[in-house]
């Protein structure tokens, strides 16, 4: 049950220099893969590009073939009310349940806002959010 809400995010290692994001995005474009959401985490001289795409397995294969270091990461997508308090609702649910957010990023699309979360206890987080009336992105929607 909970598993169907676990979304496969692709994470790509990237050096922090001009043109690297263009190379990644260009490869996905050429493969006809759509990016729903993405973020860049940066550190000392390198970064990790994280993205939700419509065909993660194909994206993984395409980028790996081009020599990129790619991995899958389990994340969840929580639908948010696109109005004041939307983020607060979700953050409170996780905070009350003692679930830690490792990182998060958000997008606001046609069907409302979505918060992408990487948490330490993913199945527990899904149960808590659903149990308190939250709405989650289905993995199949992006896979």
């Amino acid at each position, binding site marked *: 049950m909970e598993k169907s809400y676990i979304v496969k995010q692709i994470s790509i290692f990237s050096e922090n220099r001009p043109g690297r994001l263009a190379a990644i995005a260009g490869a996905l474009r050429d493969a006809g893969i759509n990016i729903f959401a993405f973020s860049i985490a940066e550190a000392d001289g390198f970064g990790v590009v994280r993205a939700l795409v419509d065909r993660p397995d194909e994206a993984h294969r395409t980028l790996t073939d081009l*020599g990129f270091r790619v991995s899958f990461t389990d994340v969840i997508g929580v639908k948010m009310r696109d109005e004041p308090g939307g983020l607060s609702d979700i953050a409170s649910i996780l905070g009350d349940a003692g679930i830690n957010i490792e990182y998060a990023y958000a997008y606001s699309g046609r069907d409302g806002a979505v918060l992408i979360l990487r948490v330490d206890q993913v199945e527990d987080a899904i149960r808590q959010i659903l149990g308190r009336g939250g709405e989650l992105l289905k993995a199949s929607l992006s896979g």
Partner: protein
Amino acid sequence: MPPWNPRTEEMPLGELRRLQFKLLKSLVYRLYSFNDFYRRRMKEQQVHPDDIRTLEDVAKLPFMYKGDLRDGYPDRIFSAEQNELVRYHVSSGTTGKPTVVGYTERDIENWSESLARGFSSCGLGRGDVIQVSYGYGLFTGGLGAHYGAERVGATVLPTSVGNTERQIELMQDLHVTAIACTPSYLLHIGEVAEKMGVSIKNDTDLRMGFLGAEPWSEQMRTRIEDWLGIRAYDIYGTSELSGPMFTECTEQQGIHIWGDLALVEIVDPATGEVLAPGEQGELTITMLQKEALPMVRYRIGDLTAVEEGACACGRTHPRIGRIRGRVDDMLIIRGINVFPSQVEHALLEIPQVGRHFQIVVDRKGALDSMLVRVEVSEEAFSDKITELMVIKRAVEHRLRSSLNVSVDVELVEPGTLPRFEGKSKKIVDRRSL
């Protein structure tokens, strides 16, 4: 400046060569009789001590290499028992295994004597205060310069490396007149002093520096002398010879290699053939009086030329010119010898990164910086920045402990580092001397 040991330093060249021959002959007999390693080498080369009939016959003897010390780790090629040794020094080897050098009391005596001659040829003596800012410890620089300076009656301030502001305060308060350190560290001292509002030229008594343990140039000498208001002298040595051992005199026309202690040859690095004076080649030295760890025709790997005519100062011994480079890919980072093979060796022990690497050496301000670029392995790649940072720091730590020099590590994308292009791509040295 008057010689420390006039009888030896001004010995006519013919007499010096007769002395060298006598010392070489007895060295070879001693080694053939008592040193298993070198006797085996001589037998392989089919040379017997009786074949050494002139000084030129030294060319019949087999060479020694750094690898011999590594293979003989720790003391298998020593000629002295442990109870005859008064000191060890240890330097990093080429592949992670260190090399150990040992000294008898007489070895330390000769080392000090050699430096005493050099220091006094530059006018260092009683009444001087010399700050020794070479590292003290397993590295030979600190203690070597220390003993030589005490021998000439100078007062030694053993500051070792680091804590530069304190070094500058002490330089002022104790009226330091001379310093022994790497040329880049002296430039760093000059810069830090300026930030403190201290001009080395106007606000200190510093008047000379003995600079070595890394290559430098005439341009750098001019810059140091003009800026800091001192005379800058080149000092040379390696742990295999003893340590820093030979210096220029006030003429600044090459480093005097005391012939009663060391026999210099310049050889073709490719063929091993002995080259004539004035020709550039690989410096090869036979230590004529060393007891604990004899070195015969030791191929140091430094490229230079030898000058045999007497110096304007009156000293007759041969001189070597500036070190022009290396025959191998050894790098000198802040005075520490670093071989790319050490980096390769260390990386093999870290599964989180691939075995390919690139070394980028630069000079930030006056100090060398070393960056090692490595590729994150597939298994170790994590989506989490914190885990990648742990890998980066672990590699930095591992390299630091095996190279004895601090290293920055950069994680790069797979497949981006040079594979087969060889040394020129693997090592990028952006320093200009």
